């Protein structure tokens, strides 16, 4: 409760949080109320292609006459789902490997950390590009690709935490009481090491959405006619600046979604990071 109150005290965080709630609400309910629910799929109205924003089409129409407002709203769920799936996959993989490395030490640590080094040596977008090219262009493969480039960050973070915590006295006492290593790790160490992971994950949502949009933009993520924001920007780019609305609105949606996640992430960090909390206490 105290944490929540502290969160709410920061106006920007609150703003980001409200934005996020709105985004989630849109993602869940959009199919029920958007003016053209079928425009998220294989519909077309080519006689109305590239209409400017107006009373009927609030964000205008794209080159197949589809309502961009409907598509942007219907695309929210795709981006959110991308964020959730990737963050879950990457953090699960990263936490498992990172905790193992930090706890076991020695050769295990060496091997896992060198693997993360190899991953981190290549810019994440480039690596994601390479992986999704190899797997073939689709949204699922893009998700896999991004998860694969994302886990090393979590692995490193959790490893450092685990290494610090495992030397502490309560771990020592658990060990001397005869507790097995698996239980020590899951019962005593991990619960105390997860706070930074939460912060990292909340910040990552935004970046993951951005990366997925970049893949979509480059033609390696979602395929048409999916209303994925990055893909929509990519298609709309050709119509810029004369038919500016085709790229602008999905672009704004990406911008706002990433911004909200980052504001919330920043807020969380302030609250959960002990180093930043001191002045407050």
């Amino acid at each position, binding site marked *: 409760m105290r944490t929540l109150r502290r969160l709410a005290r920061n106006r920007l965080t609150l703003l980001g949080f409200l934005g996020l709630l709105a985004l989630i609400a849109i993602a869940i309910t959009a199919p029920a109320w958007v003016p053209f629910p079928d425009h998220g799929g*294989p519909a*077309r109205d080519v006689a109305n292609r590239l209409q400017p924003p107006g009373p009927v089409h609030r964000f205008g129409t794209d080159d197949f*006459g589809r309502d961009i407002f409907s598509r942007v709203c219907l695309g929210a769920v795709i981006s959110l789902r991308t964020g959730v799936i990737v963050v879950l996959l990457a953090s699960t993989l990263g936490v498992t490997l990172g905790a193992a490395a930090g706890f076991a030490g020695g050769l295990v640590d060496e091997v896992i950390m060198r693997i993360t080094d190899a991953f981190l040596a290549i810019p994440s977008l480039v690596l994601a590009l390479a992986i999704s090219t190899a797997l073939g*262009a689709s949204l699922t493969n893009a998700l896999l690709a991004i998860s694969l480039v994302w886990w090393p960050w979590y692995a490193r973070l959790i490893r450092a935490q685990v290494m610090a915590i495992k030397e502490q006295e309560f771990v020592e006492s658990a060990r001397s009481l005869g507790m097995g290593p698996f239980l020590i790790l899951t019962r005593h160490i991990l619960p105390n090491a997860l706070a930074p992971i939460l912060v990292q994950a909340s910040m990552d949502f935004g970046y993951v959405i951005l990366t997925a949009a970049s893949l979509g933009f480059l*033609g390696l993520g979602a395929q048409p*006619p999916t209303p994925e924001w990055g893909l929509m920007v990519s298609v709309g780019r050709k*119509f810029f600046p004369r038919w500016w609305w085709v790229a602008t609105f999905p672009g704004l949606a990406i911008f706002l979604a990433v911004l909200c996640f980052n504001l919330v992430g920043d807020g969380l960090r302030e609250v959960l990071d002990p180093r930043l909390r001191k002045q407050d206490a």
Partner: protein
Amino acid sequence: MRRKAMSLILGVMVLAAMSGCARQPAAPALEDTLIIGSSQEPTTLDPAIVYDGSDRITRLIYESLLDYVGSTAEVQAHLATDWRVSPDGKVYTFELRDDVQFHDGTPFNAEAVKFSFDRMTKIAKGMSWAFRMVLAEVKVTAEYTVEFHLKKPYPGFLGMVANRYAAPIISPSIMQHEKDGDLAQGWAHDNAIGTGPYKLVNWTKKQELTLVKNDDYWRGWPQKHISRVVYKILPDSATQRMMLERGDIHTATHIGIDDIIVLMDHPEIRIEPAPTSNFNWFLLLNTQKGVFADRRLREALSWAFPYDETVRHVFRGQATQSVGPVPFGVPGHEPDLFQYHRDLDRAKALMAAAGYPNGGFKVTITHGDNDWARKILEMTISTLGELGITAETKPLVWGAMLDNMASQDTAPDIVVADWWDDYPDPDAFLGGMADAFWWGGREAADYFYVNPEVQDLLGEAAFEADPARRVDLYRRAQELMVADCPGVWIMDYLYATPFRKNVYGYVANPYYIMSYNVYGMWIEAR
């Protein structure tokens, strides 16, 4: 005060403009340099090997014995003065011009012609496959007379001699640059000695090529002409469009369809569409495996496709709905073939008859990664959606598409395909089918479409010397194809080229698609 000054300035300007008119009534000043933007750099300048857009450059440097008249597929003498065909259709005799020299002063004669054709067939790259298929021997019978002996009569031969690939004449003097028996391929890759109106002076890789006029060109130079051609490599279509809008380039090739549509409304730009097509877009259906093995479903898709919307709105009239597999403008086009139109009820009735009243199945589609293919793809997905069919799509480059089609293990249900012919003959357009080339497949079982009757008709027609019978054979083959619905023939595309409005004299010929008749063009100064 300010307004007065303005009107004064305006008045002076009007006066100046009027006096300018009075002094020079006709003869507007000319610009001497044509700047072309293109996304494609030549892969080679060797005319024996060129088999892609590189002919945009080689066509300015090299010439052929024949060329196509204006915008048509008719042939006329060019470096030749006349030709005869032997009664059995197997010997073509060309009389040559005696007043032509190559850029380096080497005389053009029958030996040079024989040299060029022998070299091309020996190198055996590019379009030489077509010549090796029919050409037995080239014989020099006099200094300016040359005979082509064919293996069997082939009515498409003159069209082949006029084509932009493989047939142009190169100077025998290039052999001094031969290395290790490569027939000077290495040298001719970057250098060129032809008979044409322009000479290559510079090629800065990845940036630009520069050509200047050949002062001794055998046709002479009219008063209005272009003396320099700069060919800029601009990979991005949007960049090409913006440079055109600003006037930094005069014209562009390979510019995206949406950029063409944007340019249509620009006051300083004129779009010149080709009057006919040799280029069509269609959906190739896998008739051997999966749902489209059922003819009724293929026919259903043929009735469901929104041809009119595609042509009128999506491509803004830069295409017409196809009638059969051969586009209008290509010899062998049959305007009276059955043509499907959109009739969704009929499509749904066929779906129901085939046991899928509400669709409910999934198909795979591969397509090229370009503007045209993506637009057709979206129209296709949307059409399938109306029939309750979902689609899984995969963008591929051309080579990967062919690999993908080559085996039924990987073959999709639908390929978004386009096709154009190398020379104006129905064999060039349909003949591929006789050996099942554009129907995919490495083994007979892997072909997308197999109809032995069609294959026999096409095989027979290719070498039929009697023109009337030949037309008849091609018509019968096409009738069978249209009835089988192995594809949905969507549209014959009219390739359009954008120009700054001060560029004149361009003649669009679909057989010289994406290249320019720079000799014959001029630019008025603005």
